[in-house]
């Protein structure tokens, strides 16, 4: 028995050569979707087993060590990338608690307009803002969504706010899932204080408290079926050993990149032909601005504010402090220029933007069953990103930035607002955009039409019995704000449906 693991959690050390189980409800993945639905079903009295590819981690393990963390808690060492013009680098957590362990903690409800659109265009039952409100409230109760204590403010965020205020732009404090966040700016490497209320420290303990068991270090390769009925999974222990689990109900919650690939690897066909399609990414660009005075962005909370002036156009701005290794990795320089930037590390403000994309991509199954995401930015989205990036630069100069590193490949650094104006007339190629994302959504869309959607309004996979999806893949469209709370609320709602209708019996 591995003594480092809490009761109810198992790891490769506990398994021997093969894992064979017969369980009630099997949840694959323990992130925002899987963790929530596992806890809710366990409390309702179901026999719940969660299998998770990643390891168990503890608050004490989280340190400000970006490189080590990327190697241990991020899938593919953080180097996942979509294929297309331009490629988009994306990150997924691979740890108990999923991406919530390494996320920024922004906790926003789905905008009403999006929920209304889903009801109207995709026929989502009981998905309107009023019906969804109790699920958001319940999630917010457990993950403690709250505004920050004032002492956790960071200078980079204050500068962002000052710039927005001077321009009279709408800027709001971020709601975050935190309990007296201390302001260590370590969210993406795991919260070292335990203040961030990720799934690891909320729904996972909750699931365990109500009898769920969590098997870590198990990668599910395929679902098994008897006719159209899902009967369990086959997989392997990370590091060696086979896994075979029989289950009366299977819930797939592997995230929007892995879930469609697992469904396809298992031979599942959808009448909609849309398993893996409709991938949205909320692509991000970022810029690095140099200030005269120290910014010390690492002293204080991660993303204290969001600039919402352009939300109706699908654009949000935030200050996103990065530790030196990550800043140097993403800065558009090498050699002397990079050294100069990094020597002034404490004077650098790294800011980014998120775009509610109209472009969509698809995830295919690659060699060896790995996901191959394809995504090309439409010309219109590229133009929106370029304009929004320049608008962000304008804000940073208003906040007092002295210069800004070249925002697009092949352009010069910007020395002031005039340079921003000049660049507005310049035609930036899509391939000159360096894009990044942490919001992958929509590859097993829910809705009322089996010909257009992969899952019904409650996450049940059309055409299969005993099989549900409960993660970001359910989104019928991108939502324009950070997605974690939407995923959690949908999972809560879908759990309620399963309990009330005895859908798992």
């Amino acid at each position: 028995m591995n003594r480092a693991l809490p009761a109810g959690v198992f790891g490769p050390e506990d398994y021997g050569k093969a894992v064979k189980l017969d369980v009630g409800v099997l949840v694959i993945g323990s992130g925002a979707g899987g963790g929530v639905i596992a806890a809710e079903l366990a409390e309702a009295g179901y026999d719940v087993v969660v299998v998770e590819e990643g390891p168990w981690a503890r608050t004490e393990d989280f340190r400000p060590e970006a490189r080590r963390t990327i190697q241990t808690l991020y899938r593919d060492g953080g180097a996942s990338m979509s294929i297309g013009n331009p490629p988009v680098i994306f990150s997924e957590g691979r740890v108990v608690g999923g991406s919530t362990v390494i996320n920024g903690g922004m906790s926003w409800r789905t905008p009403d307009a999006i929920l209304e659109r889903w009801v109207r265009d995709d026929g989502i039952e009981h998905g309107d803002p009023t019906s969804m409100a109790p699920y958001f409230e319940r999630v917010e109760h457990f993950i403690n969504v709250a505004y920050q204590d004032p002492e956790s403010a960071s200078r980079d965020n204050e500068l962002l706010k000052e710039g927005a205020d001077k321009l009279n732009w709408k800027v709001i404090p971020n709601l975050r899932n935190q309990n007296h966040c201390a302001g260590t700016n370590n969210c993406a490497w795991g919260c070292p204080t335990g203040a961030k209320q990720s799934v690891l420290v909320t729904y996972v303990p909750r699931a365990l408290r109500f009898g769920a068991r969590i098997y870590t270090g198990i990668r599910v390769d395929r679902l098994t079926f008897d006719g159209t009925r899902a009967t369990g999974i086959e997989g392997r222990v990370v590091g060696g050993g086979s896994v075979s689990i029989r289950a009366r109900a299977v819930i797939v919650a592997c995230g929007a990149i892995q879930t469609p690939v697992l469904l396809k690897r298992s031979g599942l066909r959808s009448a909609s032909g849309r398993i893996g399609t409709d991938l949205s990414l909320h692509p991000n660009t970022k810029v690095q601005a140099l200030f005269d005075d120290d910014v010390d962005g690492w002293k204080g909370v991660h993303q204290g504010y969001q600039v919402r002036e352009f939300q109706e156009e699908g654009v949000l701005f935030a200050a996103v402090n990065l530790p030196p290794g990550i800043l140097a990795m993403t800065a558009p320089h090498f050699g002397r220029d990079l050294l100069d930037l990094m020597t002034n590390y404490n004077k650098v403000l790294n800011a980014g933007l998120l775009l509610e994309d109209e472009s969509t991509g698809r995830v295919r199954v690659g060699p060896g069953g790995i996901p191959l995401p394809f995504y090309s930015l439409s010309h219109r989205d590229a133009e929106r990103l370029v304009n929004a990036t320049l608008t962000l630069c304008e804000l940073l100069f208003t906040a007092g930035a002295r210069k800004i590193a070249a925002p697009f490949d092949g352009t010069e650094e910007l020395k002031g607002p005039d340079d921003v104006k000049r660049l507005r007339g310049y035609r930036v190629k899509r391939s000159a955009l360096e894009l990044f994302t942490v919001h992958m959504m929509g590859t097993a869309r829910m809705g009322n039409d089996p010909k257009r959607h992969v899952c019904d309004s409650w996450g049940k996979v059309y055409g299969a019995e005993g099989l549900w999806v409960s993660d970001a893949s359910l989104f019928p469209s991108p939502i324009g704000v950070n997605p974690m709370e939407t995923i959690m609320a949908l999972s809560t709602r879908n759990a309620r449906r399963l309990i009330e209708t005895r859908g798992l019996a």
Partner: protein
Amino acid sequence: MVARSSTLPRGLVPAMEALVRVVTAGESDRRGLTAEVAQAVGEVLVPFPAHLRAGLLAGLATFDQLARMRPSSRGRAFSRLSPELAERVFKAWWHSPIFPVRQWAKGIKGVVALAYWDHPEVRGAIGFAPEGWIAHVTERRQRDYAADIAAHAERVTAPNPLVSK
């Protein structure tokens, strides 16, 4: 003396070390960290998807050898060039009109930069010292909010059924 990288193919170590020098403008040599950072790059690459790791390393081998073709290299591989020439050769790939070439240059520079600027000595030298800050604010949080923290921890596991029986 730091052991040579075990995760990097032995034949690529000189090219990787030369690249570390170019990316850090020679600062890695001044700090005596070049070999260690080259090894760290190898470690960064280990969990990468196999095709990406293979692409980055094959790109490095090609880059190293193709440098011989430039008249100014006088037949020498990238790893044997003077710092000035090495920088010029890398710059040519960085600005290449061929997208995959540019992509490779950006990608390999990224992992080298991560490995170098994540090194504790380098982080300290540029004034990034989060450990002390974390200890300070963690203590402040515990001191000021202990009751609230405990209350929420209890709420998290308290019975609260989604559907009443």
